[in-house]
């Protein structure tokens, strides 16, 4: 992992013209083998007790890293990145003669940082970002320093989509944010040619310059100085600055108590001005343009090969008042100037812009000037209390300013009491389209007629009228019940559609349309109301309509949905003719319109309201022959919704057959089986949940070395079962076998597992055939576009186009260029197919208890199973001979060992072997769920009773995923504990994981920022677990808390869990506070307790 840092560093000298450049440096944990000097320091650092010192990539490594990993090219010659690498100096927190690592790196290294530190300036090899710009060079100005804007955008992209093993430091992220926001100055033309006046001894010089004049820019500077980390100000071009030296405080390499840094605001302004200057003077301009400005100030501002100095003050004197008047803002006067456009009732009459003023304190109190001039002097005086004493002077000046921006205004100023102007229809159109914006931008308020506002606007559109072909419309009453039945769209539903010309939603005849196209003005009164016309567009629409009116096309429902989502603004889709289609599209786009299903009769439990709506959505979608993705937040119960859907489907099927009066014995009630593919670590959980909620459903797990491999036997197996559960890896390995069945439905749990379209696993799954497909995921897939595509490629192949098309049409425009239009189109496309409820939804919160508890059943891996079995065998032998205290000790030790095995083989073996997910499904499941929670911005707690597991978990979560972790165990000092708690709870801290030992974390701690609590291993007393859980579930907790308890299937964990549940049922009988009550069990009972159920092993 490499942490990228960077900063704007001003040039060393403090000459009159002082520029700077953006420098990039890379911090890493690894020491380069061929850097002997650093080896030295690293040894000394690691020998000392304390933090691990960072390493900074030196020139050769930096050049190699930038070119090879990040694809940098040299600015002047393609290959030579090294030419732009040189030493810069950074004032960094320092301790023990070593710079401290950045927080990003410290987190990664898991190193504790000392509380006391001093400051020292460290030399670091930096890459100067610039670009060779012939234009700028010809102008003798900027050195292409603005190149960093684009470069940072690229780096951000690389880091965000993990295209390289890099992370952006907060400093680099800051500069990226700022540079993007700063673009507004250039995009809004908020800068002017300018002169700077410099005193030189007794005389003076003037320098051409570009000056930023913008209230928005001042606001930007204000906001970003607050965001700016101090490290952004710590870069220097030299070891010690003249200013510091002058004060006699040489910091030459010696540690200082105080840091000498750049002041934030001035540094930000310096960077901004250099950036603007570079962009403006680097703009390619043709010779013809230079001819237009020859000899002028603009020319000097753009093209001075050297900064021209002038001994003549006249130019400055001419320029200065002009600049001052531009800089003088509207904010100085206490009122707004308002312009209200009135459209005439009779189209032959003129339009009017009425002049009004409104006090800034009461902007809604608009006074028309016509009224004002009529007032008696004492009434005017009263108003001036709000409008300002010199109101009339200010007003008239402001009107003059407005007229200069919008010249037709002059006509209204041929009087000393201006009140309004009149416009013809073309001028009114220009006003609406252009002048209104300019006036608003320069601080006036513009009030436009209601029909022009986005809400009130009528548009000429093509209406796409659609209706379903197959739905027999007579029995519409049947459909209104909201129950899926066959009278709905069938699988092969076709949609008819035709185009119609319409305005403001009303149909328009071809003749009327033609008249509008031929209208002489862009604003017309049509059927008594004003509207805007875009004749060129309307002509196009008419041509399109003429081409298509003859055909009477039909498409499949899916194609129809694709077509409507991709229609531009010119086409309005209308289903109003067809109630079936209308209700259908309504329900697809507004899931709150779904009628919750009844709790299925055979469902052993109670669905929550939103879960009933979820089941209803699933059945509705499947009824239409569409395939969706259930993407509810983790903890909201995707599993039970799927199980309920299976039951509900069965019920409907039975009812259907009953209606048809088929004798019971002849009914083929059983539907073909559903195939469920899940990660190995959750297969066991599915099986257990099915047993719990739908015990009568026949489900089998396809796994293990003794699984059926013969096709015939496999078919028979499938016939016997309602559901077959398998893992992703077996779906690939047994692809042939699985593909031999036409499935009723394929459910993909954790569907992001097929995100790589090239993986054999993905390809195998895509080949399978099924009537319905369903994807489940808890990660917000709409933000990871390629994952989204992959899932849709499984659900509705072709709907989002081929991968390359998708990349071109959506991924690149949206992720790289923030293309809003395409992102709206994509949203429209996928929305009907994704049901995502988040736990912060108002309706979900209402529906959920404040604490939601669930068990997570995990299987043992083969390795765990063999360790477990060996231990059990060993104990059984010893148990025969053990007695008294010895027997007690043996039982307790066994329980301990078995629990360790259930956690992870490495914990049991204590051989320092790899702590990997392959060896424990429990760990694998935990890390999946943790990443899901973190991606959602949630913080979480993980409890364990074992210190070894706590250590390993922290290390694992931290080093593998670089999550922000905290770890509290028995050995943590009180001070450290309080500090960690405060940091964890701080809203400014990133979502974090707090690992706690069950005992140390049990009392006196409030960690309400967490809303997920994991119990990695089980304690035999639920009261202890509950008390731990309450760290998060406390006063101050505003979110629902999800409690996840791991249970290893087929092991003592599961049996003890069962016992606890049974005891709970038995009037909450109290089990002992620790495990000693288990020693009271007789030998046989104990053997039964710890015996391993072999069917619960998963590879």
């Amino acid at each position, binding site marked *: 992992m490499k942490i990228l840092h960077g900063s704007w560093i*001003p040039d060393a000298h403090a000459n*009159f013209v*002082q*520029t700077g450049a953006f420098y990039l440096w890379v911090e890493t944990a690894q020491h380069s083998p061929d850097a002997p000097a650093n080896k030295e320091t690293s040894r000394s650092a690691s020998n000392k007790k304390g933090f691990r010192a960072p390493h900074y990539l030196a020139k050769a490594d930096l050049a190699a890293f930038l070119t090879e990993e990040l694809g940098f090219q040299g600015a002047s010659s393609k290959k030579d990145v090294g030419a732009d690498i040189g030493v810069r100096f950074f004032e960094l927190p320092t301790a023990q003669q070593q710079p401290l690592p*950045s*927080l990003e790196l410290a987190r990664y290294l898991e190193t504790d940082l000392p509380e006391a530190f*001093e*400051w020292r300036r460290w030399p670091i090899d930096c890459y100067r970002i610039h670009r060779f710009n012939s234009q700028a060079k010809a102008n003798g100005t900027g050195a292409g320093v603005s190149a960093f804007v684009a470069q940072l955008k690229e780096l951000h992209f690389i880091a965000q989509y993990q295209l390289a093993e890099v992370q952006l430091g*907060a*400093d680099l992220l*800051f500069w990226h*944010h700022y540079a*993007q*926001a700063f673009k*507004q100055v250039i*995009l809004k*033309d*908020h800068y002017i040619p300018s002169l700077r006046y410099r005193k030189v001894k007794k005389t*003076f010089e003037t*320098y051409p310059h570009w000056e930023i*004049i913008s209230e928005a820019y001042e606001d930007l500077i204000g906001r970003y100085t*607050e*965001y700016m*980390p101090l490290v952004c100000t710590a870069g220097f071009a030299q070891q010690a600055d003249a200013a510091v030296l002058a004060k006699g405080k040489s910091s030459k390499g010696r540690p200082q108590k105080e*840091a*000498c*840094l*750049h*002041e934030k605001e*001035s*540094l930000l*302004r*310096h960077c901004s*001005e250099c950036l603007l200057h570079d*962009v403006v003077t680097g*703009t*390619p*301009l043709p010779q013809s*343009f230079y001819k*237009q*400005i020859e000899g*002028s*100030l603009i020319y000097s501002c753009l093209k001075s090969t050297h900064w021209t100095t002038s001994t003549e*003050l006249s*130019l400055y*004197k001419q*320029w200065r*008042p*002009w600049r*001052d*008047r531009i800089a003088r803002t509207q904010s100085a006067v206490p009122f707004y100037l308002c312009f209200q456009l009135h459209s005439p009732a009779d189209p032959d009459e003129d339009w009017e812009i009425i002049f009004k003023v409104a006090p800034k304190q009461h902007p809604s109190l608009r006074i028309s000037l016509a009224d004002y001039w009529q007032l008696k002097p004492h009434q005017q005086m009263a108003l001036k209390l709000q409008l300002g004493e010199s109101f009339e002077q200010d007003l*008239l*000046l402001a009107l*003059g300013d407005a007229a*200069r921006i919008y010249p037709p205004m002059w006509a209204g*100023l041929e*009087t*000393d009491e201006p009140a309004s102007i009149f416009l013809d229809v073309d001028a009114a159109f220009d006003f609406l389209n252009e002048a209104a*914006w300019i006036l608003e*931008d320069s601080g006036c308020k513009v009030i436009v007629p209601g029909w022009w506002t986005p809400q009130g606007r009528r548009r000429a559109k093509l209406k796409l009228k659609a209706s379903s072909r197959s739905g027999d419309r007579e029995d519409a009453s049947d459909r209104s019940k909201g129950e899926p039945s066959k009278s709905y769209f069938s699988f092969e539903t076709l949609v008819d559609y035709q185009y119609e010309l319409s305005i403001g939603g009303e149909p328009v005849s071809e003749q009327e349309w033609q008249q509008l196209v031929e209208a002489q003005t862009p604003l017309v009164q049509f059927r008594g109301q004003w509207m805007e016309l875009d004749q060129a567009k309307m002509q196009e629409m008419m041509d399109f309509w003429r081409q298509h009116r003859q055909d009477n096309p039909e498409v499949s429902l899916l194609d129809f949905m694709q077509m409507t989502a991709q229609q531009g603004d010119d086409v309005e889709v209308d289903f109003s003719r067809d109630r079936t289609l209308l209700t259908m599209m309504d329900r697809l786009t507004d899931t709150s319109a779904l009628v919750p299903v009844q709790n299925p009769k055979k469902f052993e439990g109670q669905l929550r309201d939103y879960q009933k709506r979820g089941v209803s959505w699933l059945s509705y979608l499947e009824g239409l022959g569409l395939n969706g993705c259930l993407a509810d937040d983790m903890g909201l119960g995707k599993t039970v919704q799927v199980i309920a859907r299976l039951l509900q489907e069965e019920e409907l099927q039975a009812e259907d057959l009953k209606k048809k009066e088929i004798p019971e014995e002849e009914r083929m009630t059983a539907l073909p089986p559903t195939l469920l593919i899940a990660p190995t670590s959750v297969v066991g959980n599915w099986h257990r949940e099915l047993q719990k909620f739908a015990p009568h459903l026949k489900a089998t797990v396809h796994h293990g070395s003794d699984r059926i491999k013969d096709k015939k036997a496999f078919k028979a197996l499938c016939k016997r079962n309602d559901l077959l559960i398998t893992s992703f890896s077996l779906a690939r390995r047994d692809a042939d076998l699985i593909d031999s069945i036409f499935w009723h439905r394929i459910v993909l749990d954790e569907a992001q597992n097929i995100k790589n379209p090239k993986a054999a696993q993905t390809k195998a799954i895509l080949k399978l055939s099924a009537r319905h497909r369903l994807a489940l995921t808890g990660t917000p897939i709409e933000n990871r576009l390629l994952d989204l595509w992959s899932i849709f490629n499984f659900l509705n192949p072709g709907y989002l186009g081929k991968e390359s098309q998708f990349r071109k049409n959506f991924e690149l425009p949206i992720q790289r260029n923030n293309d809003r239009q395409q992102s709206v189109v994509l949203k429209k496309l996928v929305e009907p197919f994704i049901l995502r409820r988040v736990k912060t939804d108002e309706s979900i919160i209402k529906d959920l208890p404040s604490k939601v508890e669930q068990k997570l059943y995990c299987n043992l891996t083969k390795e765990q199973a063999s360790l477990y079995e060996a231990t059990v065998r060993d104990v059984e032998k010893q148990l025969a001979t053990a007695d008294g205290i010895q027997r007690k000790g043996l039982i307790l030790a066994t329980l301990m060992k078995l629990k360790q095995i259930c956690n992870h083989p490495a914990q049991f073996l204590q051989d320092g072997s790899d702590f990997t997910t392959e060896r424990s499904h429990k760990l694998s499941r935990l890390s999946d769920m943790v990443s899901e929670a973190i991606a959602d911005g949630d913080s979480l707690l993980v409890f364990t009773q074992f210190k070894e597991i706590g250590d390993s978990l922290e290390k694992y979560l931290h080093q593998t995923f670089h999550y922000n972790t905290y770890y509290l165990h028995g050995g943590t000092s009180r001070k450290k504990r309080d500090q960690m708690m405060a940091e964890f709870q701080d809203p400014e801290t990133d979502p974090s994981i707090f690992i706690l030992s069950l005992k140390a974390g049990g009392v006196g701690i409030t960690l309400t920022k967490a809303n997920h609590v994991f119990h990695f291993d089980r304690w035999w007393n639920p009261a202890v677990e509950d008390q731990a859980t309450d760290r998060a579930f406390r006063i101050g907790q505003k979110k629902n808390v999800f409690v996840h308890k791991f249970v290893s299937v087929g092991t003592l964990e599961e049996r003890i869990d069962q016992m606890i549940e049974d005891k709970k049922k038995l009037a909450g009988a109290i089990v002992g506070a620790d495990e000693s009550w288990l020693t009271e069990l007789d030998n046989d009972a104990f053997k039964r307790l710890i015996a391993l159920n072999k069917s619960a092993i998963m590879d």
Partner: protein
Amino acid sequence: MSNFTRTWWGETFLATIEQFTDKGRLSRGRSYANGRKVESFEVEGDRVTAHIKGSVNPYYGVYTEPLYVTTLEFEPISQAKWAAVIALMASKVSILSKLLVGEIPDNIEESFETLGLRLLPEKGDFTGHCTCPDWSNPCKHIAGVYYLLAAEIDRDPLKLFELRGLAQEDLLAGLSDTPLGIAFSKELTAEAAPPEPVESLHTRPEFVSVARSVSLNDFWQGEKRLPSTIETPQPTNVPAILIKKQGDYPPFWQRNNSFIEVMEDFYTRVRTKNGNILD
């Protein structure tokens, strides 16, 4: 087209003399105005006085380089009539607003006409005099002075009022009882701000001492978290709004082409030709 004027009133002013002066004298006059022959040029009230170096011309008996005195005198409008004009101007926001940024409203003569007057002089509204031997009036020297005067008026239209007999103090005094007149006087008499000397072209990055007590978090992460989304500013629909407020041909723009048009073109190019940075 001449190079001396770029405004409608400058053009009109020149057109007057061009109507009754022969082409040769006009063109010689232009070169006088352009060249280094004008020793002095002074406008005082309604009278212009210039000293112009003549050329040696044995045909006219001129053997040493002469220095001619050329004067132009304009017909003043009477004080009483000016009072009426000022009252009329004060009643129109448009007129004073434009004068304020150095423009003469293009319909100003309509206002003058209602009083039977005109602002821009015509043939008869001025007399020229020159000490040169040319018998023709206007001679090339008078023409030259006229060109210089046109250029002057082009830049500072209030000079025109002075030429027609209205001193600036009288103008301001006459305007002092209307709100706009007051604003106008204020702007005109505002003292030009003294030049503001700066120590550096760009804002100078300053240094600060940061105490040791600063936390590692402040140093590496900043006191406030960055927003989760990156701002994406959109380009303006209409170019050069900022500079349009001050009208075309600002005082420092000596060229004859439109400043606003140039700046519109310029801003648009900067916005559209820097795709690598601005996209």
